[in-house]
Structure formats: structure tokens, C-alpha cells
């Protein structure tokens, strides 16, 4: 049992060797049309995955059993830590998180091998080879600079504990989802590079790339939402997005993945925008690599609790440069060979998706420029400056507004050639409703900025538009008949409407929270009851009962007991805490939140005051939960779309004749 770490180390080295074979042999095989060489790719991908999984399991074992002879376990774990965080602590550090990275990379590679039976053999061999090449670079990185299996000569009695901020369910599962998204985009990248080598992109290619991108995008959505939600309840201020470089690092691939998702539809249905789709696939994964670089290197000194090591940064930068640069060179050489076919009118679904791509790609560019500008300004102009939320709010938001204005119309336009008037016809009602709601909001909230009414209008426009879009797909006839047909609509249609509605819901939450938040900061004596002044339904009384010292498993807590009343009725009992983790020597703030559909009551306990009172911060946060609910709805939309059997019907088409009951595309 004591050799398990060595076993894990060995498995990782073997996985690297297998990946090397998987990178070279099938590529040569595909070039020379040697079936035997190409066939190496699949078992290699499976073997590689099993080996990395074994390696990851070995590291997990070391954490679970608190094997402090491993350097990584000593630095990031503690025997008194709850079991859940012993397990999640595996990826709560640089080395472990990279092992998770390659595990997911191998998982995606292996699934391409498992489910790729109907791909053209040369394309499949090349996809798996490209996927393996990314793996090789990261295995080398881990083994050479970030080995998680290093032993200590004299193991300590106990560890130094995991950063207490990471000991939280929200954050514990934030990295795996984020990585599923980041690394999932590697599939799109591999398909793009393989198609460039192959010199051919067709509808089948689009149909293949889309589900992978969709999966990556939906995981990324969940990952970002988890991080945002965590920041909201853990950081004691209730913000949900800070435009920090590390957040931007995950947001940029998300924006590009969303763009890629939409333009792959055009390739699939209309065989147009091929060049652009390939470029976008390369860039989307490129931004994932850049994101990994930003997070892992700390170059933008957003000191992300873990990892801050220039040597590692340079290595990741080299990997990023190699893959993005190499792919773009290949692109420059080969892309012109892929001519688009489809002809379409200026007003058409195709044009709408071009507009979608322009807005998403340019907004990603804005985030990118804002993120690296402090670095550029310092290196090129010798100015030390900051680019914070006020910049991003001003420079990024207009793109989202434009996107949301266009979205419902674009979604209704038919392919090839459309008439704007006809597409708008079912939408006029929604528009009127959205404008009325905006006007009403404006009338009620007297004297505040126009942003909230604007947000309400846009959000309702998008949500209503999504509903109308779905309804209009049920055709004509009696409502019962239409409802029946609605149920039979393909997953893709449902997914589209659900995901778009999710975007609207998130927008609603953002507008409500940013514009109507109420804050109350005061000193309260134990036993004191006070009113938080707010608009009508959001007015609450708060009573501080007492403040006590409480001991947790690996922390000491200052816990307040607070009751929240509306009128005379008690609606919540809250226990906000301030914790100190003695081993890590760090305090954390645990806000107490009474979650509601229309508002959160968010209470933070501050410092004791000289007069025996305590600083208490109370926030009323309108529609806060809608932000993350919208993200979940978006992710559900992605899942529903993934379940669309057209993917499978089409996938089987190469082997057998299409199923007779196959749903006609569009």
C-alpha cells in the first residue's frame, strides 16, 4: 500500500508514452493510408485514459489516507479536514489540478474513440493524434515541472491544510466543471486541425463538432456559475462578477464557445462559414490555453491562491504558442482550400448567425484587451494602471445589449432568404409586453437609473422571444394539436429556446441585483431590533440575538444569531459567521443568506465594537438567484439539445440507411 504513489507516478509516465505513440503512429497511418497504423489510435486513447485515471486515483488515495510523505499532501491537506475536502483538495492546488486537466483531456480523447465509430477512419485517426499531441505537451509539463508524486525525506506529523476558502462545496466543484469546459474545447480544436490536415470540411464535420462544443460550453457554463455563486456567498460582499483576470480567463473561452456553437450550425445545415468555424475552433481552445496560462502562471498577478511560479508560466506560454501558432500556420496554408457553398440573402438565419458571431467574438476581444492591458501598459508604456469593473461594464455591456436585441429576431428567421416583416409578426406582442414591463418598472422605481427598466425590457424580450420561437415551431392548427406537436419537437429546438430563455433569466437577475440592491451597515447591540429601509415588499426587520464562539472541525467560529422579520412575522433565522482556520492561519467570512425567489436577505457579521455592539451588514439583493438559475437553465438547454436524436441518426447514417422515422432537419 505504501507504494501507491509510486504506482501513480509510473502510470502517469506510461500514459505519456502511450500518448506519444498515439500522436505519431495514427498520423503517419492516415497520411499513408495504412489501416493498421490508424487503428492504433483507439486502443491507445483508451489505454491512455485508464493509465491517467489510475494515476489520479493514486493521488486521491494519498489525499484520502493523509499520506504526508507526499509533498503535495503535506502542503494542501490536514488530517482533521472533512473527507469531502480531502478529496476535493486533490485538485485544489497546482499539481493536482493539472493532473485533473490531463485526466479530462484523456477522457475526451477516449470518448472520441469510443463514440467515433462512424467517423471517417483517416479523420478519426487524425483527431485522436492531435488530441494526443496536446496530452503529450501537458504530460511533459507535469512530469518535468509539476510532479504531484514527489516524496518528502522526512514526512511531518500533519499537513498545512487546504486554503480555507477552497473548503467549500461551491468552490470544490468549480474547477472540475471549468476544466471539463476548457479541455472539452480541445475536441473542437482537434477536429479543426484534423480537418485542416485532411483538407476537407463538410456537413458531417459540423455535425460532429457541434455536440462536443455544446458539451464543453455547458460544462463551462456550470463551472462559471459555480464560481460566481461561490464568490457571492463566500466573499462577504455579495458581488457575483468582478472582472478579475482569472474570471475573464474562463469567460473568454465561454464567449467563443458560444460563437462556435452557433456557426457550427451553419456548417452543418448550410455548408457555409467553414473557414470561420475552423478559425473559431482554434481560437476557442487557444483561449482555454491562455486561460490556463493566466491562472497557472499568475502573470497578471491576480494571485489566485494557488500557483505562482514563473518557470511554469513560461512553459505553458510555450505550449500555448506552439499549439495556437502551429494551428494558425496550418490554417493560413490550408483554409483557402475550403470554399463555402451556400447562397443566402442579406436577411436570413445565416446573416443573423454571422451577426451573433461578430458580437460574441468582438466582446471576447474587448475582454481580452481589458485583461491584458495592464501588462501591455507596463511593458510598453511604463505605466502601472488598473482595468477594473467600470471599464468592462462600459465596454462590454453594449455588445450584450445588442446581442439580446437581435437574438429573438435572428432566432425566428428562416434559412437562405427571409422577410423581416414576417419573422417579426409573432414577436410584436412580446415586444409590446417587454416595453410595457420596462415602462412599469421605470414608473415604480422612481428616480433611479434607466438601466433596470432597460434590463427588464431586454430580458423579457429574450425570454418571450424564446417562447414564441418554440410555439411557432408547432405549426398551425388547434391548440391541443399544437401542444402535442410541441412535445414531439426535436431536442435541438427545445434546447435552443431553453438556453436562450436562460440568458434572459440571467439578464433579469443581473439587472435586478445591480440596480436595486439595498444595503444597511450599522452597529447593533445584542438584542437590538432594527428596520432595513427599503422599497415596499423588500423592507425587513432584523434582530441581533447574540454572538457566540463556536468550534468547528478544523476552525473556530464567531457566530451571530439573527432573526429576520417582515412586520411581526419571523421569516428566517440566520447565523452568519467569521471563521479562523488556525492551521492555515486564515480568516473567512461566512455570510448567512435567506434565499428567496424575489430576493435574498444577506447578512454578514463584522467586528466587535468598543461599546459592546457588533458591526452588522445587511443586504437585500433583489432577483439575485435568477443570475445562477439562468445559467442552470442555459446548461439544461445545452443538455436537451445534446439529447437530440438527430445527432445519433446522422451519426449512424454512414453505416446504415437513415432510420425511416428520422426527423427531417428543419
Amino acid at each position, binding site marked *: 500500500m505504501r507504494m501507491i504513489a509510486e504506482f501513480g507516478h509510473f502510470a502517469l509516465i506510461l500514459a505519456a508514452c502511450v500518448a506519444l505513440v498515439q500522436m505519431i503512429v495514427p498520423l503517419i497511418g492516415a497520411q499513408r493510408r495504412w489501416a493498421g497504423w490508424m487503428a492504433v489510435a483507439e486502443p491507445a486513447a483508451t489505454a491512455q485514459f485508464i493509465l491517467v485515471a489510475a494515476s489520479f486515483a493514486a493521488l486521491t488515495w494519498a489525499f484520502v489516507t493523509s499520506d504526508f510523505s507526499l509533498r503535495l499532501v503535506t502542503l494542501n491537506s490536514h488530517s482533521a479536514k472533512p473527507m469531502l475536502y480531502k478529496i476535493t483538495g486533490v485538485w485544489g492546488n497546482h499539481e493536482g489540478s493539472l493532473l485533473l486537466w490531463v485526466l479530462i483531456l484523456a477522457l475526451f480523447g477516449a470518448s472520441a474513440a469510443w463514440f467515433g465509430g462512424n467517423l471517417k477512419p483517416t479523420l478519426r485517426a487524425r483527431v485522436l493524434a492531435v488530441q494526443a499531441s496536446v496530452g503529450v505537451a501537458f504530460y511533459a509539463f507535469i512530469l518535468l515541472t509539476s510532479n504531484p508524486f514527489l516524496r518528502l525525506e522526512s514526512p511531518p506529523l500533519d499537513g498545512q491544510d487546504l486554503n480555507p*476558502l477552497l473548503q467549500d462545496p461551491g468552490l470544490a466543484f468549480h474547477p472540475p466543471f471549468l476544466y471539463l469546459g476548457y479541455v472539452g474545447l480541445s475536441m473542437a480544436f482537434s477536429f479543426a486541425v484534423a480537418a485542416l490536415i485532411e*483538407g476537407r470540411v463538410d456537413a458531417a464535420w459540423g455535425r460532429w463538432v457541434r455536440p462536443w462544443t455544446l458539451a464543453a460550453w455547458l460544462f463551462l457554463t456550470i463551472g462559471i456559475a459555480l464560481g460566481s455563486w461561490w464568490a457571492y456567498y463566500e466573499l462577504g460582499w455579495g458581488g457575483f462578477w468582478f472582472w478579475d483576470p482569472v474570471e475573464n480567463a474562463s469567460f473568454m473561452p465561454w464567449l467563443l464557445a458560444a460563437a462556435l456553437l452557433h456557426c457550427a450550425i451553419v456548417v452543418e445545415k448550410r455548408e457555409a462559414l467553414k473557414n470561420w468555424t475552423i478559425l473559431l475552433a482554434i481560437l476557442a481552445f487557444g483561449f482555454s490555453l491562455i486561460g490556463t496560462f493566466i491562472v497557472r502562471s499568475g502573470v497578471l498577478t491576480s494571485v489566485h491562491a494557488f500557483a505562482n511560479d514563473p518557470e511554469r508560466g513560461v512553459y505553458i506560454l510555450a505550449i500555448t504558442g506552439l499549439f495556437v501558432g502551429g494551428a494558425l500556420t496550418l490554417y493560413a496554408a490550408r483554409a483557402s482550400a475550403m470554399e463555402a457553398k451556400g447562397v443566402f440573402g442579406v436577411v436570413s438565419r445565416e446573416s443573423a448567425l454571422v451577426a451573433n458571431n461578430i458580437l460574441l467574438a468582438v466582446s471576447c476581444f474587448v475582454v481580452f484587451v481589458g485583461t491584458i492591458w495592464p501588462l501591455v501598459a507596463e511593458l510598453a508604456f511604463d505605466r502601472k494602471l488598473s482595468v477594473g469593473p467600470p*471599464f468592462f461594464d462600459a465596454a462590454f455591456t453594449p455588445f450584450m445589449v445588442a446581442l439580446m436585441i437581435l437574438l429573438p429576431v435572428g432566432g425566428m428567421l428562416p434559412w437562405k432568404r427571409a422577410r423581416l416583416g414576417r419573422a417579426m409578426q409573432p414577436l410584436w406582442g412580446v415586444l409590446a409586453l417587454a416595453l410595457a414591463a420596462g415602462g412599469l418598472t421605470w414608473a415604480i422605481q422612481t428616480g433611479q437609473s434607466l438601466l433596470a427598466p432597460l434590463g427588464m425590457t431586454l430580458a423579457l424580450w429574450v425570454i418571450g422571444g424564446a417562447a414564441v420561437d418554440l410555439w411557432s415551431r408547432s405549426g398551425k392548427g388547434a391548440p391541443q394539436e399544437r401542444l402535442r406537436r410541441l412535445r414531439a419537437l426535436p431536442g435541438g429546438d427545445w434546447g435552443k429556446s431553453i438556453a436562450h430563455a436562460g440568458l434572459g433569466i440571467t439578464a433579469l437577475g443581473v439587472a435586478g441585483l445591480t440596480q436595486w440592491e439595498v444595503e444597511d*451597515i450599522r452597529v447593533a447591540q445584542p438584542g437590538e431590533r432594527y428596520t432595513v429601509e427599503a422599497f415596499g415588499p423588500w423592507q425587513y426587520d432584523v434582530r441581533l440575538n447574540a454572538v457566540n464562539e463556536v468550534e468547528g472541525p478544523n476552525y473556530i467560529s464567531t457566530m451571530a444569531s439573527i432573526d429576520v422579520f417582515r412586520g411581526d412575522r419571523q421569516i428566517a433565522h440566520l447565523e452568519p459567521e467569521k471563521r479562523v482556520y488556525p492551521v492555515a492561519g486564515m480568516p473567512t467570512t461566512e455570510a448567512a443568506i435567506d434565499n428567496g425567489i424575489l430576493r435574498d436577505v444577506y447578512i454578514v457579521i463584522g467586528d466587535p465594537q468598543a461599546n459592546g455592539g457588533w458591526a452588522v451588514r445587511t443586504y437585500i439583493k433583489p432577483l439575485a438567484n435568477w443570475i445562477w438559475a439562468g445559467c442552470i437553465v442555459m446548461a439544461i438547454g445545452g443538455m436537451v439539445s445534446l439529447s437530440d436524436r438527430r445527432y445519433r441518426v446522422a451519426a449512424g447514417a454512414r453505416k446504415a440507411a437513415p432510420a425511416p422515422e428520422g426527423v427531417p432537419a428543419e
Partner: protein
Amino acid sequence: MIRAACFALVLAASGASPAGALSPDELLDDPALEERAREISSQLRCMVCRNEAIDESNADLARDMRLLVRERLVAGDSDEEVIDFVVERYGEYALLRPTTEGANIILWVAGPAMLLVALGIGGGFVWSRRRSPARTEEALSAEEQTRLDALLNE
């Protein structure tokens, strides 16, 4: 996670428990003045944290800056004067919203300029697709041609 870093930094710097974010004793009695203070604070960063406005920061330095802002406001400064004062003392780094001076104009113009370029390219593409002279049917690849020939010869 930013805050995680901030906590770590603050603790490393002070070795003591953090002073806490904006606390009751700092608030001004005049609500209008306090509101202006908050507005200004949201545009100023805590110098030892990353991308964190001073109101939200637990750092001692952020507290100093909050108090400074209020001091200047009480002394009768306008919002711009307060911000100028902070920039003079702490440098451009303290601004969360970068100025448009000098090279920073690139930062502000990058987005709109890129949008124009993208609209140009995208618009041109859409226009050209409007009525393509010849529908370029995709030819068979060499491999497919050989396979087809083989099948036909069978």
C-alpha cells in the same frame, strides 16, 4: 478567489486580523455626502488587492483610502477633485476605470474599432453570398474518386 488572494496578501502584510470592509464607524452622517463617497469608492481600488474596490476590501490601506475620500468630501472637494487627489497620492494604479489619456486610448477604442472591422468583413461576406455567380459544388477528393472508380469497375 480574488478575495482569497487578497486575504492572503493582507495577512502576509499585516500579520494581524483584517480590519474588515467598510464599517459603521466610517460612514458619514450626511447621506448625500455618503452616497457620493460610495460612488467614488467604487472607482478606486485597494492598492494591495487585485481588482477589488476599496469598499469591499479588508485591507488596512483600503480603510485609509476610504477615510481619505470622506475627509476630502467633508472638506468640500468635488468628486473629480477627490479622485485627482487620490491619483496624485497613490498613482494611476488606484483607478479601476482607466483614463483615456495617452496610450490608454487604444484600450478604449479597441472594441469599437474591432466591431467596425468585423462588421466590414462580415457585411462584405454576407453581401457576396447574396447571389453567388456559380454554385461551387464540392468536388470529390482524390481518395473518394479512386473509391468511386473501384466501385464502378467491380
